[in-house]
């Protein structure tokens, strides 16, 4: 920090390094525990002392995707030999895969919830970022009466507690049949992310020099052409970062999904806790579901790392 590095300064630095490492380990411990539990055999998930070293297996993921029931009698050697490798993993855990009358493997609720999450998050992101980009350009380039008030209005719609908005939305959706549909959630998430996307994109738009478009206008471009051919390519990074933020928000959302969906359009966040239900939960399966669900966000966080500050402060604070 200071220009003169004294020996106290150096030892303080060493202390800080040790401190940061310890804090990082503590902060990552729960995430590590999710990841490791997802690869444990069931009997090692809840041991005392906790099992840290083990032979990883993927049976939790097989169980995550299939419908299972308890084995009453052990499978015969022929049954066991005839079963595919992944089904044997389920046999080993004392369960069997449920099959339909025609012998088709029954899927668990997880894959469809995961798909619902993808559909809802991707569609609402495209809508929110699409509309948000246009609106942000409008706010950035044109004089608007009461601009600050309008921007405040746009932001305040995001600050409302989900349950407050959900009560009337539930009644309105029920009246028009949007409850438990993808579109119902997509509309809610679009509205929720739209305000964010306007605020964030406005920051990115403000950074693109006006002179670029003015030069294009002089060259005979229309304003629309200038927007599509000059501004949008310049804003590409900002659009991508905004889209990832919107995706993560929609992907993670719980309260609206809990209230507005129950089966057909249910996303993963309300589904994963509902698996705990009654009896002794199989934490390896929950961990496997959690792990798969968190993975995209973890990857996105690394891709976004240089935009996190900006995104989390609604574009107000930049480095």
């Amino acid at each position, binding site marked *: 920090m200071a220009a003169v590095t004294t020996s106290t300064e150096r030892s*303080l*630095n060493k202390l800080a390094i040790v401190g*940061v490492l310890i*804090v990082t380990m503590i*902060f*990552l*411990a*729960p*995430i590590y*525990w999710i990841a490791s539990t997802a690869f444990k055999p069931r009997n090692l998930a809840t041991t005392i002392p906790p099992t840290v070293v083990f032979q990883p297996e993927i049976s939790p993921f097989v169980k995550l995707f299939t419908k299972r029931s308890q084995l009453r009698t052990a499978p015969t050697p022929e049954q066991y030999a005839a079963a595919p490798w992944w089904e044997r993993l389920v046999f080993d855990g004392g369960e069997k895969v449920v099959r339909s009358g025609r012998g088709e493997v029954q899927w668990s609720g997880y894959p469809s919830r995961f798909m619902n999450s993808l559909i809802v998050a991707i569609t609402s992101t495209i809508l929110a970022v699409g509309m948000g980009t*246009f*609106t942000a350009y409008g706010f950035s*380039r*044109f004089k608007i009466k009461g601009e600050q008030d309008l921007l*405040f*209005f*746009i*932001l*305040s*719609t995001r*600050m409302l*507690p*989900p*349950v*407050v*908005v959900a*009560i*009337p*939305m*539930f*009644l309105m959706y029920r009246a028009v049949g949007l409850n438990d549909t993808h579109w119902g959630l997509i*509309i809610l998430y*679009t509205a929720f992310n*739209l305000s964010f996307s306007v605020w964030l994109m406005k920051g990115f738009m403000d950074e693109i020099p006006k002179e670029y478009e*003015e030069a294009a206008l*002089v060259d*005979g*471009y*229309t*304003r*629309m052409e200038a*927007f599509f051919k000059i501004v949008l390519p310049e804003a590409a990074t900002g659009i991508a970062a905004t889209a990832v933020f919107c995706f993560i928000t929609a992907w*993670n*959302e*719980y*309260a609206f999904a809990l*209230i507005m969906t129950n089966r057909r359009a249910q996303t993963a966040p309300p589904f*994963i*806790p509902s698996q*705990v239900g009654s009896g002794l939960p199989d934490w390896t399966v929950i961990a496997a579901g959690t792990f798969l669900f*968190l993975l995209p966000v*973890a990857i996105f*966080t690394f891709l976004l*790392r240089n935009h996190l*500050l900006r995104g*989390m*402060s609604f574009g*107000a*604070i930049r*480095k």
Partner: protein
Amino acid sequence: MATAVMTTLDPKSRSAARGMSDLTIRNLFIIPTIVFLIVFNIFPLIYSLGYSFTDFRASSPAAANFVGLQNYRELLNDPFIWSNFAITAKYVIVSVVGQVIVGFGVALLLNRDIPLKGLLTTLLLLPMMLSMAVVGLFWKLLYDPSFGIINYTLGLGSFEWLSNPDMALYAVAITDIWMWSPFVMLLSLAGLSAVPKHLYEAAAIDRAGSFYTFFRITLPLVAPILMIAIIFRTMEAFKTFDLAYILTSQPTTEVISIRLYKMAFQEWQTGRSCALAYIVLIMILAITNIYVKYLNKVKER
């Protein structure tokens, strides 16, 4: 006006003659968003304002009766509702104070010459990006009295966290602190890195103690950004629903959002819950107003 700017640029240019005028484009770009937000955010609120003056129950086919201000009067005189607000206030204080201490503390540690600083910072930021509901659920396993790693690591035996009425709210707050300290850390780091280096150098030349340097240079300069973090986290903690709802079902963790959820979707007191929603809404708008003022202040710097 922007149109005026264009006319002065080149009144006879093709761009002015052909294509849409700037005014049309401005309206085309902005109005759909405003309309969308009005239809899906403001209209529902007007709708629920109407219901807040009725005894409507969404579970029964009976028509709503106008009851005037009765819902509001009863809610504001209901000691249970006030206790929900008190629980919420306690939760806000514990979790926000915890986040500021941990987040700002870690930021101070990170604001030095640390190898792999970028990687460590990103790793530390991971918790806040994850789904509260899904990760929160997993903390149930971590808090488990008999085989949770928290009790094991801290040597607490079979200490009850979530099923203990006195401890449950703190347990939820600890999870919230784990998730959101990174947010305070992120903003603090931005504030710390913006402090001009020459101030520290001048203080070092003046042989100022580190205590003095911290309170007279670091803290005042980071304060505005830290304030944004605090207001934002206060607002979010006030709205909290996911974590407390998933982790416990103790009456001592029934924050206002959970009460509202139960009133609306379990007891089906729709009219009354609309009134409570309005009371909460007014509080949130007040905090949002302060937040936006601070945001604009920091932006102008």
